[in-house]
């Protein structure tokens, strides 16, 4: 079978794949021998994809099982713990699929969801059967049959309410215990009173019993509640993830030269630390000995490694790429950069939890009104007729018929549909309220590196002749330096053998190919006598001391970035770039993409401060960013988005994650959210109109079980049907864009 739909393997760009360490951290242990890793594979969508992905992964040594879930577009791979981490990403890329690590959080094996689903199923079963009996009663069954049917209905309704109604009773009880009221209080009161009244009437063989109403009400409400639960926030793990990056210990060197491994928290200011290549800097400090390159991407977001030597200041969280460094600790663990980030994110998340979802706001207005009305109805009829049974029946029918069936469905139904739309476009939504916040957005703030650009270096220009290019690629294959990887990706099939390979931190790499000594790196190092004013963004290749040519690098802009920015301009969003990079790099990208405002050299705290400033001006900001350095800003913004290849912390801190490389996801998500917001408002309007219409009937005492059933189903169906409109006619780009997107993927 040919692979019908796999987009072309993206070998060309040296995309940053998670390191083995990251994969291990994101995996969970299934047993003594097995680890399970979940990878999201957004472009998988058919049987051929299932086969291609599972076969490719199963062929890897050490992989025991692989299973693709096409609904969530995630593949779970089980592999042997003792062996090396199988090369999942390289394998999937070769098979033609982009993959990203998916962190499994505990909240996903959600017992509450199963409980809701079972309660809904039981209520649905009972509602159908009782309705069946009720239809016979309504169509004029004789007194004996009616009595029998009412008794059977009671037998079905009692255990059903006892089982399914617990959801509401428990929540209402806990609200009352804390002297608050919530939506579940009128629901519970209504359900219990109706049930009691109907039992009373059934035993006295009266003509009306409301078992059908009470059970189908429970069913509809549970459907709404289940949908709502699907859209609830999954527990945030961003801070946990951040804490996991922090090195737990470090090797200290005492004055007499003895080395000791210590817990970072016990390391005091002024102690000397040793950091081996490949380790993260554990504490903020100053280098006293050694020289090497540091990957500061987590801290500053800058792609190009920083060359650091004695006297340079380093921050905790930077990755030591290739030098052996001795560092004097200048701050304790609690004061380090990472700890500061954790504190900032905690503050930001606490600040944002104040947002109240539209459904909650509606409910808090709603429930006191219903309570008051029902009480007034009871008191009024009691005063007018003195018949407590009549008065109670009417009060209960007010409670039941105004019960927020439609209201309960109005918001979650739209949000579930919108989440599905978003998912089809490769955007994962973490919770429903993010959709509401997204719909309110009027300002979009972008990070540069990794967001507007892909965060990979690519070769922008090369003066190296073809015969040397192959050698340069072969040499570059041996280094993990981003510039080397960009050069290597020019000739991915180069098979030239490299001898005597050596890497000189901060300078470059060298090796012998076919007897000739090649050097690749800083122009002044690769070829003596060559002076370049532009040492940083340029590498030179020399062959036996002769200059063969130079490479200049640029960051790859994200696909469709320009179009996305243009689309946002047209819809009158305020746009801004906040970047940790230097002014020149930021200005170039921002101007190129059509931004008018940008700020460079922003530290994480500056970004948060800028967002606070915008909030102070009454703006609702969507933050789009990826790195650890953006995480506090992502948490602090009104709503946030991160690309799927962002750092794990960035993905966790964001409300939405888009998995396709294209930045078109941002305007698309905004469009869907606005449309969903409009539908939610319509639905709430429908629910209010419905209540205003039926309330006089209920107050006048004209609501029979038949009328209650019709009114309730009609309003619910209306609201659901309105929500389904989100399916077809989302703005045109969806239909056209999906195809175009696929073509673009195939072409890339």
């Amino acid at each position: 079978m040919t692979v019908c739909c796999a987009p072309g393997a993206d070998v060309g760009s040296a995309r940053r794949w998670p390191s083995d360490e990251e994969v291990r951290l994101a995996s969970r242990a299934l047993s003594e021998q097995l680890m399970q890793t979940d990878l999201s594979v957004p472009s998988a969508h058919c049987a051929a994809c299932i086969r291609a992905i599972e076969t490719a992964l199963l062929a890897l040594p050490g992989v025991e099982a692989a299973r693709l879930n096409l609904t969530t577009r995630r593949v779970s791979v089980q592999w042997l713990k003792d062996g090396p981490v199988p090369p999942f990403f390289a394998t999937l890329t070769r098979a033609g699929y982009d993959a990203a690590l998916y962190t499994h959080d505990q909240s996903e094996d959600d017992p509450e969801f199963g409980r809701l689903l079972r309660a809904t199923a039981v209520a649905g079963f009972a509602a159908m059967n009782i309705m069946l009996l009720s239809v016979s009663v309504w169509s004029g069954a004789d007194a004996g049959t009616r009595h029998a049917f009412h008794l059977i209905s009671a037998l079905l309704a009692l255990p059903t309410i006892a089982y399914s109604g617990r959801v509401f009773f428990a929540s209402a009880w806990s609200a009352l215990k804390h002297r608050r009221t919530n939506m579940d209080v009128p629901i519970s009161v209504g359900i219990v009173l109706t049930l009691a009244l109907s039992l009373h009437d059934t035993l006295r063989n009266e003509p009306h019993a409301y078992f059908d109403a009470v059970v189908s009400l429970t069913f509809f409400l549970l459907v709404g509640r289940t949908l709502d639960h699907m859209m609830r926030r999954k527990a945030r793990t961003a801070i946990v993830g951040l804490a996991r990056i922090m090195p737990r210990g470090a090797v200290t060197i005492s004055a007499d030269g003895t080395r000791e491994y210590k817990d970072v928290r016990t390391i005091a200011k002024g102690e000397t630390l040793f950091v081996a290549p490949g380790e993260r800097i554990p504490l903020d400090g100053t280098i006293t000995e050694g020289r090497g390159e540091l990957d500061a991407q987590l801290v500053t977001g800058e792609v190009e490694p920083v060359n650091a030597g004695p006297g340079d200041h380093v921050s905790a969280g930077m990755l030591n790429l290739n030098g052996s460094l001795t560092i004097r600790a200048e701050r304790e663990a609690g004061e380090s950069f990472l700890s500061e980030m954790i504190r900032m994110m905690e503050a930001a998340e606490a600040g944002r939890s104040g947002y109240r979802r539209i459904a909650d706001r509606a409910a808090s207005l709603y429930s006191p009104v219903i309570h008051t009305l029902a009480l007034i109805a009871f008191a009024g009829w009691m005063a007018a007729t003195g018949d407590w049974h009549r008065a109670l029946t009417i009060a209960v029918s007010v409670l039941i018929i105004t019960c927020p069936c439609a209201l309960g469905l109005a918001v979650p139904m739209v949000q579930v549909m919108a989440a599905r739309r978003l998912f089809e476009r490769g955007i994962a939504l973490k919770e429903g309220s993010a959709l509401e916040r997204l719909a309110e957005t009027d300002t979009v703030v972008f990070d540069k590196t990794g967001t507007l650009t892909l965060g990979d270096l690519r070769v922008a220009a090369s003066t190296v002749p073809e015969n040397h290019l192959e050698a340069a690629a072969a040499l570059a294959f041996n280094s993990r330096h981003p510039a080397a990887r960009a050069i290597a990706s020019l000739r991915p099939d180069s098979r030239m053998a490299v001898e005597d390979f050596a890497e000189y931190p901060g300078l470059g790499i060298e090796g012998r190919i076919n007897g000739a000594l090649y050097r690749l790196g800083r122009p002044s190092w690769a070829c003596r006598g060559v002076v370049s004013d532009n040492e940083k963004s340029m590498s030179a290749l020399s062959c036996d001391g002769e200059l063969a040519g130079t490479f200049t690098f640029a960051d790859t802009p994200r696909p469709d970035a320009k179009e996305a920015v243009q689309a946002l301009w047209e819809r009158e969003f305020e746009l801004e770039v906040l970047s940790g990079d230097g002014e020149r790099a930021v200005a170039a990208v921002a101007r190129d993409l059509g931004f008018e405002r940008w700020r460079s050299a922003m530290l994480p705290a500056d970004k948060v401060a800028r967002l606070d400033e915008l909030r102070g001006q009454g703006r609702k900001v969507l933050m789009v960013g990826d790195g650890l350095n953006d995480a506090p800003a992502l948490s602090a913004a009104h709503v946030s988005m991160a690309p799927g290849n962002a750092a794990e912390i960035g993905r966790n801190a964001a409300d939405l994650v888009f998995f396709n490389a294209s930045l078109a996801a941002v305007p698309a998500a905004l469009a869907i959210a606005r449309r969903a917001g409009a539908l939610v408002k319509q639905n709430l309007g429908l629910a209010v109109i419905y209540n205003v219409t039926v309330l006089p009937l209920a107050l006048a005492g004209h609501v029979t079980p038949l009328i209650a059933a019709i009114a309730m189903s009609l309003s619910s169906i209306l609201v659901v049907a309105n929500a389904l409109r989100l399916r077809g006619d989302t703005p045109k780009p969806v239909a056209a864009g999906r195809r175009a997107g696929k073509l673009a993927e195939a072409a890339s």
Partner: protein
Amino acid sequence: MSYLTWLIPIALLMGATALLAFLWSLRDGQYEDLDGAAQRILLDDGEDRPAAAGGPRYSRPEPE
């Protein structure tokens, strides 16, 4: 009246059976991947048992 004493229990029993079947399929993880289930019938050698959240229920096909 007498036929009702038969028909109604039968109707309820059928309904209850359906309910139990649903609860069983729910617990068995059959709703975990509806899209995948629809596609997997197209694979000749596909393992089509649902993937349960717990232990390794699916694995490398044995060589024949």
